């Protein structure tokens, strides 16, 4: 089943190439490149500025923007490292929370979506509508209620309220459901059943692998948004060694004036972006590298 997949893309391009008018393809290609280069510039420019800024001293930074790197990056980094902020704890905490969040969120959302997608039960439509409605509820107002709740549950200053709620993530669910609609035929599940696979096993060993591109996409999104979270962690986590990077950055920025150093702030921002980039590059292979769905054919 999987074999024909690999053939598909080359075949397509061959075929299409023959049919299109050569000159217009050439023109379209040039336009595409121009736009892509422009867009790439717009995307990467910020990283360049961050980099420049992290090489500049506090004084240089306060005198405005320049496009040329300065020489203070090592100094900024040393100051940061020797400061009192537990940045290595921070990176561990951020990683832990973001990874757990991404895993829980994608796994259980896929499971929820699968429940709605693959089974017929009385409350199915109700549940689907219900979850979609949940998605429309603005998150901000429940924030305070949420905090009171975790206070009552004794979960203050713990990672639980930052990770476990990710299990119920309506928009990840919605995406998984939509993705299944377009790519996961029920006949495949039938086939698994005929082979004697249990429902849970079918989900884990057949459905999950098929959902890889979708899972990778949502894992990235979830990871990144968790990584960049500030507000809830800031209210939930009190112990310095439990804090995540965005809180530490905020702390660095509200340093007292003797210690305030924008150079350190920028180095820390650069430092905290680095792991996300790595994670992103790893996960993005699943999307960018063209992992296609093998075996979906009914």
């Amino acid at each position, binding site marked *: 089943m999987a074999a024909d997949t690999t053939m598909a893309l080359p075949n397509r391009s061959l075929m299409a190439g023959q049919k299109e008018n050569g000159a217009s393809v050439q023109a379209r290609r040039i336009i595409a490149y121009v736009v892509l280069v422009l867009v790439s510039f717009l995307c990467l420019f910020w990283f360049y500025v961050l980099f420049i800024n992290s090489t500049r001293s506090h004084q240089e930074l*306060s005198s405005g923007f320049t496009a040329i790197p300065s020489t203070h990056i090592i100094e900024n980094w040393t100051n940061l490292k020797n400061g009192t902020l537990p940045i290595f704890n921070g990176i561990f905490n951020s990683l832990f929370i973001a990874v757990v969040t991404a895993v829980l969120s994608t796994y259980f959302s896929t499971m929820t979506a699968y429940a709605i997608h693959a089974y017929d039960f009385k409350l199915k439509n109700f549940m689907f509508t219900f979850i979609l409605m949940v998605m429309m509820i603005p998150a901000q107002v429940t924030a305070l209620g949420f905090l009171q709740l975790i206070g009552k549950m004794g979960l203050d200053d713990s990672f639980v309220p930052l990770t476990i709620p990710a299990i119920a*993530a309506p928009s990840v669910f919605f995406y998984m459901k939509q993705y299944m609609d377009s790519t996961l035929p029920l006949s495949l599940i039938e086939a698994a059943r005929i082979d004697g696979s249990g429902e849970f096993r079918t989900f884990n060993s057949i459905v999950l692998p098929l959902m890889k591109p979708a899972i990778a996409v949502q894992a990235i999104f979830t990871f990144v948004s968790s990584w960049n979270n500030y507000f809830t962690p800031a209210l939930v986590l009190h112990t310095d060694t439990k804090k995540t990077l965005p809180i530490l950055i905020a*702390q660095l920025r509200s340093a007292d*004036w003797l210690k305030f150093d924008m150079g350190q702030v920028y180095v820390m921002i650069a430092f905290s972006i680095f792991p996300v980039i790595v994670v992103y590059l790893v996960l993005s292979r699943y999307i960018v590298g063209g992992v296609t769905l093998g075996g979906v054919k009914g």
Partner: protein
Amino acid sequence: MKRKLLGVLLSTTMVAGMIAGCGGNNAAPATDAPAEEASTETATEEAATEEASTEEAATEEAATEEAATEEAATEETTEVAADEGKVLNIYAWNEEFKSRLTDHYKGYEEVDATHGKIGDVDVVWNITPSDDNAYQNNLDETLLKQADAADDDKIDLFLVEADYALKYVDTDYTMALADLGISDADLADQYTYTQSIVTDSNGKLKGSSWQACSAGLIYNREAAKEVLGTDDPDEVQASVADWSKYVETAKKAEEAGYTMCSVNDTYRTYSNNVSGKWVQDGKLVIDDNLMNWINDSKELVDAKAENTYDLWGDDWAKGKTPDGKIFCYFGPAWFFNFCLDADQEGTIANQGGWGYCVGPQSYFWGGTWICAATGTDNASLVKDIILTMTTDKDVLKEIATKDADCVNSKTVLAELASDDSGNLALLGGQNPYKQLAEGAEKIDLSNLSAYDQGCNEAFQNAAKNYFEGNATLDEALEVFKKAVVEKYPEVTAD
């Protein structure tokens, strides 16, 4: 944006949502960061234990009291019964007070970034950044639960800034210093204004600060010579001695190609000198002096003699160099070191080109107050910390010289004013302590209220619309009133 939701929901649905939201907030402070720092704050808090404490406190007090007499205040707390006051919880939004305590409080040993020891007592630092109001939110929640918290979890000390000090001070959650055994005589050397900030509506003093951040007008000597023909502090002072002279000078500066400063620079000077509180009998009142600020500023903005730049922004910071063509900044002592970038080649400060005078009206900017939280199980230690850090002249002198804080001691400031150690290169060798001390004496803060933080912020924001021509004065004031009622639903404005 669209995907924000997505992101939000994704990760933790609701939680994430708030976070994303907040992320936003983070940034805002970014630009203000200095402001916050500036505002210094140290409040110590003593937690009051409601029930358990009476007896314990008594015994413990006895024990610590002894200890306190010793050199290293608390060495002897070892003898305190095991279940009493083993943990000192301190709430702060940055590390300023922690480093002061580490450096200047004998007996404090640092364990790690958030823990220390004073004798046998574990010191736990609970530091929450003030971004997005997180510090106050956190403090509020904990204080409200204070009565039910276990002794070791109770807040003992917390820090506040002037802008919202009364929010905490004017409640029973903060202990009166008198109840800790700190007398007026202990505090006699402090500046009065630093005490009015933390005096509740019943006249009880409930906090103390080691800083006295009186502020004035920091002028560009080059510009002063050009515009006024002199850079002598007294003569410059004469030409900005009140607001009408100030406006005159600003216009002259404009003619000479300078911008006086930003409207936001002068705001605190006006707002410190109001004749009434923001909220009177539940009604919002806009003070005359603030209307003066609006009118003077509008006039100067229209004349291009002042700009509307936000403090700490890149544009505002340009005035640090001669090219910025700024006549003056308004600021206290910490502003010299922190904001003028004397180390940087090419800045005015680097060339010693600034001068300092009191300016049109006296005011203060910044400072950290230490408050004791009602319910504290470490009352005597708390008392000792407050006394040592805010009244001990040797410690204060040390802080003044080592950390460059302008300290809350008339004696120490007088000493600094009288010798050359107070001369600052960036002020062209001027010793500003005379003016700083003079300013600190004159500050009158009898009209502070718990609404100051929210109202001042909203007022400046709303006025900006008027200055920049996006609204008429009435429209801008409407927006201001709206913003106040949103923040303080119990206040009426019409």
